[in-house]
């Protein structure tokens, strides 16, 4: 150590200097403390309210609680749409230490496809790190169990349960029920426009088609709220208050699932549709379009492959043929045309013509043929309907002219929406002079009027329109609103806390009736339809042989291919999609009808309405009436010996519950 320098120190001067400096430092300390305190004062006193509000909004969250969607039942209380818990596997990236390896491990454990994994990683990038992202949308019970046992190995990955719509009858009800699916951007925008976004804050799916869409407001219910205290992870610490959601209304439909099943069976392997309606109310008993598809596929988000398959199918399963397909009505509209003839005094029930197998307009070379090459001979109005005589109706249509026809047919609802309670509906076409002018900018030709006379030309109808028109006919002009909804039921919570279901039947105001100058005309036409089925040798006699419910009906076979003059139609040589359509309309019993049915079958291989469509209608009616034996009061009807054996009394009608 070097010898220390000797410093002569001025102890007191040093002490004074140091004391001065220390005092300055102390003054600085006090100043700084005042600044710190002033700042805290500013935060805690001046801005207290601002920070208190922010502190509360930090910790208090209003959690939306989704209401349970209303259930849907058929007319007899069979469940058609319910809500089932579905388990999904979700991941909060923030809580997972090594996201890639965790996902790979859990995927190995639960056998999750690489497809889903890459989808997960894609959507993970788009979401905030502390929001859950779905890895698997539908775990099986085994997968849930397997994961639960191993959950401790995967922090940040969890199973979440959600109620999802389920249609137990799958494709049997899809066209009428429609389906729900994930709320997409378009739906969200619409909800925002209608000011409903708040009510849907916790809702995952929304009605996209059919009843589910039309009655979305009733089915959805009202959102509930849970005010909770949360921590910084967003985890709920405790509930501060709770407003329960109001579940959606349960709906009871007019549909009868057993009739639906018969309809499906009867149409299996065919393209076509059936609509059955109660003419007393307008309630639809059965509405089935074949082929159909499974609405459940859409609930879980349909895969591109499956959707493409449905879209590309030649059989167009996505189309609800009962309301969306316009078919040429063919001879099924002859009763309506006959009624128009009577109403316009063009014909009387006794007006006869002589059918030689063809009809020719004066001065024109074209020959309009009857379906029977040699004609029916002498034909009056009733026989014209029974035998579906084209010549009679060429003549009638010619005499009526297109305007009178279209005016009257529009009063039956042809060419317009029926107003059924689903949005998927087609107006089809009721041609008129004005329509053709607008559509083709062409004038109307008389030859087209003749085709309209046998339900061809531009005229198309939906099976539902036919059912509706027939309902008006059997009701002697009383017009009903076709509908699927029978009743709604809502949960009433009394102040005592007791809950009851209040069932309210839906009342449909009938439309303005169709009035005829002479009310007896209704019966002329209806009786002609009756004998079409009941009279030996009439066009629809064979398919209804042995039935006990006194059915009436009218057949139709629509030409799809345009035949050239003199050309003969032959199903075997015509390509499949150019073959004739088979049509049939029917109602029963004759007195006080309870059911009207319309059947359309596309491109039948052989025969027409009587051989293809009428048996289908019969199966529906057989199911509807069961063992009931009904005889007409005004007519002698042959009741088969077999039916007589079963039921002792010739008149044994079980009154059906009216809806």
């Amino acid at each position, binding site marked *: 150590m070097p010898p220390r320098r000797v410093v002569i*120190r001025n102890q007191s001067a040093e*002490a004074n200097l*140091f004391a001065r400096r220390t005092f300055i*430092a102390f003054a600085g300390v006090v100043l700084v403390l005042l600044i710190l*305190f002033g700042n*805290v004062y500013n935060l805690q006193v001046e801005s207290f309210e*601002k920070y208190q509000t922010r502190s509360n909004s930090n*910790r208090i969250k209003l959690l939306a609680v989704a209401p349970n969607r209303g259930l849907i039942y058929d007319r007899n209380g069979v469940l058609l749409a319910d809500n089932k818990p579905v388990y999904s596997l979700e991941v909060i990236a923030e809580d997972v230490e090594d996201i890639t390896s965790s996902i790979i491990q859990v995927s190995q454990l639960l056998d999750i496809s690489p497809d889903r994994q890459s989808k997960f990683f894609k959507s993970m990038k788009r979401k905030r790190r502390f929001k859950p992202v779905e890895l698997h949308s539908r775990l099986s019970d085994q997968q849930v169990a397997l994961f639960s046992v191993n959950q401790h190995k995967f922090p940040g990955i969890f199973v979440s349960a959600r109620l999802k719509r389920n249609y137990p009858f799958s494709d049997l009800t899809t066209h009428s029920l429609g389906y729900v699916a994930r709320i997409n951007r378009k739906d969200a925008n619409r909800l925002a426009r209608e000011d409903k976004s708040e009510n849907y804050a916790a809702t995952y799916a929304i009605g996209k088609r059919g009843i589910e869409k039309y009655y979305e407001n009733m089915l959805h219910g009202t959102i509930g709220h849970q005010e909770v205290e949360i921590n910084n992870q967003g985890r709920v610490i405790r509930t501060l208050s709770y407003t329960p959601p109001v579940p959606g209304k349960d709906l009871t439909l007019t549909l009868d699932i057993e009739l639906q099943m018969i309809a499906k069976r009867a149409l299996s392997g065919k393209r076509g549709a059936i609509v059955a309606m109660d003419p007393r109310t307008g309630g639809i008993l059965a509405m089935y379009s074949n082929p159909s598809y499974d609405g459940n596929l859409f609930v879980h988000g349909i895969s591109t492959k499956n959707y493409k398959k449905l879209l590309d199918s030649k059989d167009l399963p996505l189309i609800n043929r009962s309301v969306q397909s316009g078919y040429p009505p063919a001879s099924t509209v002859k009763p309506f045309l006959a009624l128009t003839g009577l109403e316009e005094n063009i014909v009387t029930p006794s007006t006869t013509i002589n059918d030689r197998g063809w009809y020719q307009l004066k001065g024109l070379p074209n020959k309009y043929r009857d379906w029977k090459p040699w004609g029916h001979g002498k034909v009056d109005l009733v026989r014209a309907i029974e035998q579906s005589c084209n010549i009679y109706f060429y003549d009638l249509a010619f005499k009526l002219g297109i305007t009178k026809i279209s005016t009257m047919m529009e009063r039956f609802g042809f060419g317009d929406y029926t107003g059924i309670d689903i949005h998927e509906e087609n107006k089809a076409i009721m041609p008129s002079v004005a329509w053709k002018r607008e559509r083709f900018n062409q004038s109307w030709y008389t030859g087209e009027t003749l085709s309209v006379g046998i339900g061809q030309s531009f005229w198309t109808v939906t099976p539902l329109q036919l059912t509706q028109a027939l309902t008006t006919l059997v009701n002697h002009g009383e017009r009903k609103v076709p509908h699927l909804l029978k009743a709604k039921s809502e949960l009433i919570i009394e102040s005592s806390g007791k809950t009851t279901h209040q069932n309210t039947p839906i009342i449909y105001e009938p439309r303005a009736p169709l009035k005829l100058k002479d009310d007896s005309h209704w019966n002329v036409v209806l009786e002609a339809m009756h004998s079409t089925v009941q009279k030996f040798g009439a066009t629809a006699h064979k398919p209804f042989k042995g039935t006990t419910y006194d059915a009436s009906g009218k057949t139709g076979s629509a030409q799809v291919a345009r035949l050239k003059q003199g050309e003969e139609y032959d199903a075997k040589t015509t390509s499949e999609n150019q073959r004739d359509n088979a049509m049939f309309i029917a109602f029963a019993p004759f007195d006080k009808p309870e059911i009207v049915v319309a059947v359309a079958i596309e491109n039948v291989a052989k025969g027409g309405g009587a051989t293809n469509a009428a048996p289908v209608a019969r199966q529906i009616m057989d199911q509807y009436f069961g063992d009931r034996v009904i005889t007409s009061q005004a007519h002698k009807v042959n009741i088969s010996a077999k039916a007589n054996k079963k039921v002792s009394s010739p008149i044994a009608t079980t009154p059906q519950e009216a809806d």
Partner: protein
Amino acid sequence: MRSSGQEEQQNNTFWQRLHIDVPLLLGILVLLFLGLFIVYSAGGQETAVVYRKARSIGVALFGMFLVAQIPPLVYRKWAVPVFVLGLLMLVGVLLFGHVGKGAQRWLDLGFIKFQPSEIMKLIVPIMIAWFVSQDNLPVKISTVILAFILVLLPTLLIANQPDLGTSLLIASSGIFVIFLAGASWKLIGVCVGLASAFVPVLWMFLMKPYQKQRVLTFLNPEQDPLGSGYHIIQSKIAIGSGGIEGKGWLQGTQSQLEFLPERHTDFIFSVFSEEFGLIGVAALLSVYLFVVMRGLWIAVNAQHAFTKLLAGSLTLTFFVYVFVNIGMVSGLLPVVGVPLPLVSYGGTSMVTLMLGFGILMAISTHRRFHV
């Protein structure tokens, strides 16, 4: 009068023999016990955290007691070699340091892992106090310049780890010595000017991106409320929502529901303000003021320039902790990792602080200290 005075003297003699400064000890104990209660609240009411804190308090008090027994003469004798050893260790950290939390601060000697930068908090004021007390006060400019270089060496080494908080504390401990030693005001003015000019250089070349981000966040925390601004916003919410009376012990929602980050360490003041309000803050600041006053009193009454400077620097550096920590959590200063002294959870910095108080007590009680 006389008898009571005698009693007092006897008392003083007893504590003096133990080399304990009673008022200083009382102030320190108040802060330490307050720390226990707040750490319990901030640590999710987990007793294990409190036990650990209590254990380090015990260790620290014992360390303080031991250091207080050492006559200040010893520090002066060992100032140079220890300073050199400290610098070597800092270089060692730079070369073989253990990386933790994104910074290289720890030195692993096989049997023990420690932060040389913590020891430097004591070594630097000792070294500078020794250096400037070689000559008569006030200090000459040449001494100041040399002293600055001595301060700058460890400061830059630590800032490079990077540990902005500690380097700031070490720099200020040296600067306080120079200031107390009577550096001329003109010189101080020039230094402040130079320091301001150095800021852009610091920003452009020396600061790491995360440090720059902290400064940017400090300037405008609301620009990224869920990202880097989150801490400071949540802290201000905690303090502000405490109001005048506070939400009550264990009742602070910001801390109990974990919206506050680093609750039991750097942001413990926010927890305290939320639960005890402005009244609590006033009381806490008063205790700190008391401790600082007592430390400065010891400095003024010390018998030699070296001990005066050392005691003054240690006291003022203690206050820098208070200022930087509270300033940072209440949004006055950018976020630098400085704990609230004696209250925050965290053994290392508390032990260093307590060793510093041990030195203060030694200065206060070893009266017969000759040149």
